[in-house]
């Protein structure tokens, strides 16, 4: 039937246009470009814009390219008058332009600062200072310690973080070697637990020495780490052995200052070859949990904000 039951005649038959296909190709090109390269995005965007305009021109009944549709161009009816703008030079036109322009300017002026405050400070450098983890004597050779510390000095327990620390003995040149593994799971950031016996009764609070809350708890017979959330499992070097994590556990840089172990910045690790002091650590700059640092999937994460 040609007519709606309610007497609403369609102005033109439903789209015979081929332009949506071109538009879809453009969008697909943009999405692929996001992964591959920025110039592919630009090409895709241009394709989508051109075909989008052609599609709209078809839908409006005034095709730019007559070849796209066999239908003859309809004569411009009275509907064309609806969109007629007042003459540019008229008083009304000027006042409308001035009102919109001034309104837009004021709107921008009052919107930009709050938007900036909401979006930009998270990316500005946060001053994180090295954390004193106490004298080296707290960390016996080849034993694991669970160390809970305060990431930001002088702040509340919301900044408590945990690392698993093992002293590997001195390497060549007499510099002590430490394995310091973050408890942040490389899957989605839950706290991994050591697979071993936690000696809770021998837990030491060394806050009086470090002047910031630091707790050191021995854990024996550690065979690896595992995450309670989704079952990610790691060996004692933090290499993934099972489950969903995409890389090894993150580690902390460290330094020895006046016989004290001092925690530095966190970094990401693809995987570790070897163990202890001889381990070869494939390091990367710090990425968030679940973000690949190696393998083909790393193309999804070309940028990461400074931490």
């Amino acid at each position, binding site marked *: 039937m040609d007519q709606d039951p309610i007497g609403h005649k369609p102005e033109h038959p439903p789209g015979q246009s081929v332009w949506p296909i071109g538009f879809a190709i453009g969008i697909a090109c943009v999405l692929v470009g996001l992964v591959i390269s920025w110039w592919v995005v630009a090409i895709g965007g241009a394709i989508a814009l051109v075909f989008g305009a052609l599609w709209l021109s078809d839908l409006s009944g005034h095709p730019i390219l007559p070849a796209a549709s066999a239908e003859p161009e309809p004569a411009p009816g009275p509907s064309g008058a609806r969109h007629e703008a007042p003459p540019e030079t008229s008083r009304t036109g000027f006042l409308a332009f001035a009102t919109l322009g001034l309104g837009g300017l004021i709107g921008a002026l009052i919107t930009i600062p709050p938007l900036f405050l909401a979006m930009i*400070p998270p990316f500005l450098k946060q001053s994180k200072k090295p954390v004193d983890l106490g004298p080296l004597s707290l960390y016996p050779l080849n034993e694991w310690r669970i160390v809970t510390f305060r990431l930001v000095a002088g702040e509340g327990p919301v900044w408590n973080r945990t690392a698993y620390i093992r002293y590997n003995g001195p390497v060549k040149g007499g510099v002590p070697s430490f394995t310091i593994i973050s408890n942040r799971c490389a899957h989605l950031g839950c706290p991994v637990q050591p697979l071993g016996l936690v000696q809770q009764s021998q837990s030491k609070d060394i806050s009086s020495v470090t002047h910031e809350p630091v707790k050191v708890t021995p854990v024996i017979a550690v065979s690896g780490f595992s995450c309670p959330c989704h079952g990610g499992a790691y060996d004692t070097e933090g290499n993934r052995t099972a489950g969903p994590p995409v890389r090894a556990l993150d580690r902390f840089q460290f330094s020895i200052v006046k016989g004290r172990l001092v925690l530095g910045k966190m970094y990401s690790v693809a995987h570790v070859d070897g163990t202890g002091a001889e381990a070869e650590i494939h390091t990367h700059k710090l990425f968030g949990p679940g973000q690949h640092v190696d393998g083909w999937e790393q193309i999804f994460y070309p940028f990461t904000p400074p931490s």
Partner: protein
Amino acid sequence: MAATRPPVSGRQKVEAVVLYPLDWLEERSGLVGAVKYFLFRKVPGDVNWFQTLGSATLTAFIVQAITGVVLAMYYKPDPNSAYESIRHITNDVTLGWLVRGMHRWGASLFIILMFFHMARVFLFGAYKYPRELNWIIGVLLLILGMLEGFTGYLLPWDQTAYWATVVGINLNGTGPIVGPFLSYILRGGSEIGPDTLARYYSIHMLIIPGAIIGLIVLHLYLVIRLGVTSPPWSKSAAGAPWIEEEDEEGPARKGLVQPAPRGGAAK
């Protein structure tokens, strides 16, 4: 003078007195007429209970808004006192347990009702021309509703809240290209800290509810303008009786009268 007027019964006098404030309001704002139009507008004769799911969803949202505003009088969005303030609301404040319970269980109800409402619209074909835009607004409302769930989940600041939010943020962080930046914005920095909780509180009670209210107004405006759809099994075109009086130009263009769903039962 009194003789020129027709006799007035006592009942009519009472009515006049009662209606006077409404007349006063109507004369100055037209609001009474608007509300009457909204409440007594024509709908297809064969609508059924499934078409009340939208109103049910709206009611659930209003419950969330009211209980949320009151809970905000007692809640403290600070890592050192958030959990304690929730405990205080639940155990100490008179009826605090009830209002918090309404907000907590109402949250799930709101989401569930949104899905039921969406299923009704989908199965009735009510998303078709000319109501596509209202479907799109509905999808935005669904997304905003789920964001409310995500941000509200952190506020009790217990272990479940904290780690669920850690996982939720990092899940967003795995999105290609923009993921890492998205997680920073959600977290308010590279690490979860005091700012994260305050940020979620602000998003949960100011930004998203504002957006939801705006979109609900649009959603309802379109429902009123385009009318309610008949069920797919309807024998008649939607709202048929008064359509014949309309002119050729198409009643849909004038608004307020609904066209039949395309490809529906109206053949």
